[in-house]
Every structure is written in structure tokens, then in C-alpha cells.
């Protein structure tokens, strides 16, 4: 078993953890977004029923605990790597300020910053909805499900919440612009023919997923004005 622990603390082992957890979270984002699109279906019945299933199905519950674990692992490992790298770089910074021209420079050079912002965002986001859903008494809808729809629509009528969510999604977009492709590179999945495709898919993913999420706060913010 020594080989396994040695591997997991090696540079490439740690990168593998970042890559695999990252890819899992990418998958989660897709599911999460598609599920949440049910907000647009009717005035809450479908969405609330979905939320009920998500919190009561034992299999889904198990996956969601895995998900929380991966978020934490990804974040903690990420911060640890950031600190380790900072030490490896040394305290003296370059006084010359030119930077080399690379693809996705802003996002790749600031993964830790965007990641931290996202982590903070997730904490607030979960306190706001997940926490309420699990730990507080909530109004119920016509079908007797907890009315998460109501909580969501009310929350997104506040300007600061919308701005906070949009900023969080911008951070997510930047994080994904590098992160998606980077996960494949870390796994060693690189090929002259296929890498450009992965990069393009990654870029599309990094834009479409946050856009899909952004549609929700905007929708609920704009909805009352339309009426």
C-alpha cells in the first residue's frame, strides 16, 4: 500500500486528484444546471418535486455526499498546491513585468483566486438554499413539497443577490476556461488531433454552463418587472 500513499502525495498524484475531482465537479455542474432549468417549467411544482427527490432518494443522497467531499478535496488540495507552489517560487518576485503569451493566460494564472471565489460563493449559496431546505421549516407547495421555488424566486428579487451570483458565475467561467482542458492535460490525455477539440469543447462549456446558471437569477429578477 506504500505505493499508493507515495503516489497520492507525489506531484503527479496530487495533480491527478485535482483533475479527477475537477472533472467530477464539471459533470455535477451539468446535472445541477439541467435540473435547475426546471425552474422555468411552471410556477414551482416540477422544481419542488425535483428538489424533493434530490434530497430523499438514497442513491442521490450518497452521490451528493460524494460531491461535497470532492468539492472539499478539490478546494483543500488546490489551496495546498497553491501554497506549495508559492514556496517553490520563492519570495523574490520578478521586477520586470512582461509576461509570456500563453493561451487563456488570465484564467490559468489565477486558478487559485477564481477557485477561492467560487468556494466562497458555494458556501453562501448553500447556506441560502441547501441549508434552508435541510434545516429550517419551510412553506410547502400545493403538492406538499417544500417550496424551494418560492425561496429561490424571492432571493433573486434582491439586487445584491443577483449581482453576487453573476460575479460568482464569472469566476466560475474563468475557472472552467482553463480547468476543463487542464484536467485532460493532467490526465495525460493529449493528442495532436483531439486536443484542439477538447480545448474548444472546454471553452464552450466554460461559457454555456455559467450562462445557463445566470439565466436563473436574471429571470427571477426581471419577471416581476414584466408583469
Amino acid at each position, binding site marked *: 500500500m506504500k*505505493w499508493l500513499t507515495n*503516489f497520492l502525495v*507525489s*506531484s*503527479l*498524484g*496530487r*495533480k*491527478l486528484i485535482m483533475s479527477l475531482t475537477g472533472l467530477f465537479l464539471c459533470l455535477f455542474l451539468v446535472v445541477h444546471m439541467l435540473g435547475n432549468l426546471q425552474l422555468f417549467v411552471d410556477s414551482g411544482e416540477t422544481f419542488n418535486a425535483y428538489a424533493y427527490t434530490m434530497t430523499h432518494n438514497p442513491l442521490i443522497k450518497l452521490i451528493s455526499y460524494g460531491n461535497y467531499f470532492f468539492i472539499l478535496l478539490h478546494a483543500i488540495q488546490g489551496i495546498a*498546491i497553491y501554497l*506549495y*507552489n508559492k*514556496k*517553490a*517560487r*520563492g519570495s*523574490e*518576485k*520578478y*521586477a*520586470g*513585468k*512582461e*509576461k*509570456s*503569451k*500563453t*493561451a487563456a*493566460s488570465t484564467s*490559468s*494564472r489565477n*486558478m487559485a483566486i477564481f477557485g477561492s471565489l467560487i468556494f466562497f460563493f458555494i458556501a453562501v449559496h448553500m447556506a441560502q438554499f441547501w441549508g434552508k431546505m435541510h434545516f429550517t421549516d419551510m412553506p410547502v407547495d400545493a403538492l406538499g413539497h417544500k417550496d424551494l421555488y418560492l425561496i429561490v424566486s424571492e432571493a433573486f428579487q434582491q439586487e445584491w443577490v443577483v449581482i453576487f451570483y453573476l460575479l460568482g458565475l464569472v469566476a466560475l467561467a474563468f475557472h472552467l476556461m*482553463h480547468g476543463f*482542458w*487542464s484536467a485532460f*492535460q*493532467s*490526465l*495525460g*490525455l*493529449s493528442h*495532436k488531433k483531439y*486536443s484542439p477539440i477538447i480545448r474548444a469543447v472546454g471553452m464552450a462549456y466554460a461559457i454555456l454552463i455559467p450562462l445557463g446558471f445566470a439565466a436563473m437569477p436574471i429571470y427571477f429578477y426581471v419577471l416581476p418587472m414584466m408583469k
Partner: protein
Amino acid sequence: MAHDEINLTLNVWRQSALNRKGGYKQYKVRVNTHMSFLEMLDVLNEQLISSKDADGPVAFEHDCREGICGACSLVINGRPHGPMQGTTTCQLHMRHFKEGEVIYIEPYRAKAFPVMKDLVVDRSSFDRIIQSGGYISVNTGGTPDGNAIPVEKDQSETAMDAAACIGCGACVAACPNAAAMLFTSAKVSHLALLPQGQVESQTRVKRMVAQMDKEGFGLCSNVGACEAECPKEISIDNIARMNRNYFGAILSSND
């Protein structure tokens, strides 16, 4: 050639020895635009010698001045080997600089490359990475005929692309994480791509990665600055290849 001579202001890192406090000193030079960057430093050093400057001439590493030995280093205005792509400092010429320009000249910065004096850093960590496995274990003599093992042309060319590494360390200097993955992976790739090197490729990649970690280099986050600054334009595809070989070796080898 309007400006055959230009005036420059140089901010040069001066440090008397290992672990001493260093700092930037400013110097003015007037140089010919046909000079190489190192010849410009020669001019500066002649000035410092003739004025018997207290700090003495600037120490910097250089040797072949043809872009192949890998001795020259320097971070010029924040970029290892300066602004020109695919060019070592010794092949960078002053015609790429403007009259009156202010230039920062600094040593590579990485914990695994301690500054020995002025612009000279200790890159022996690279040697130790190679010693850990960057070779094919054959003794002299008794090898098969050169044509006994055919090597596919494309494969051989890709190996050559990786083997072109000059071990200058620009990849580490450019990397925001001070990672040495481009260097290590170039050697791993060069040997793994050749049938002769395939035989011990699993042991090799494991040992080289372990040594790289031991030296205190950072972890790659796929920024790609190494590839952009590499004077031999070595691709980060090599890093992916190393990762792949490493995972394969960990999973399938017996130890």
C-alpha cells in the same frame, strides 16, 4: 539602420554570494544595435572594470553563445531569455530594443535554483533529475547494429523534438509555480518514444518524477508559460505524455 547606437538604462540584480541579500543597481550603457544581449553585458562589464566599481563586473553564465549549450539564462524584463520567441539570451540582439529603453535583468527565481552570485543560479537539480533515470542503461560495447532496431521516422522526429532541450531552466523560471515538468517530461518523452528507451520506461518515469519532487520544484498547473518561453520551443504535449506514462507505470508495474 537609423539607430546604430542606442542608450539604455539597465536595472541589474546584484548579489555578492549565496544566501546574501541582493538588490537592483542601475547602470547606463551605450551600445551598438548589432550586438548580442551578452555582448551588451560585456560592454557594461568593461565599464565596471575600468571604473573599478566596488561591486565588480556582473557575473552571468554563458559559454557557447550559439544558443545550444544552455548556460545562458537571465530574465529580461520579466521574461526568461527576453522578448523573442524561440531564442536564447545569447542569440538575442540589441536591435530588438529601443533608444532610451529601461531593461530589468534578473536571475531565474525558483527555490530549486538558488542564486549563487548576481545573475548566476545553481541548476544542479537538473543534473540530479537526469541522474535519477534520464538514460538508457546500456554499457559501452556489445550493442546491436544501428539498423537492427528500426525506428519509425515520425516517432524519431518527435523524440528529437523533445531531445532538443538544452537544459537551460527557462521553463522553471517562466512557470508561475516554478515547476520542472517541461524539462523532466522532455527527457521522459525523448527516451520513451524510442524503442531502445521503451524497455525501462516505467522505472525511468517513476524515478525521475520522484527526484523532481525531491528537488522542491512546484506542481504544474498547465499554464503553458514554459512552452512559450522555451528557447527550443518544446511542447507541453510532453508533459501530458509523462503524466500518462507515470500513471501507467504506477498502475501496472510490480513495485
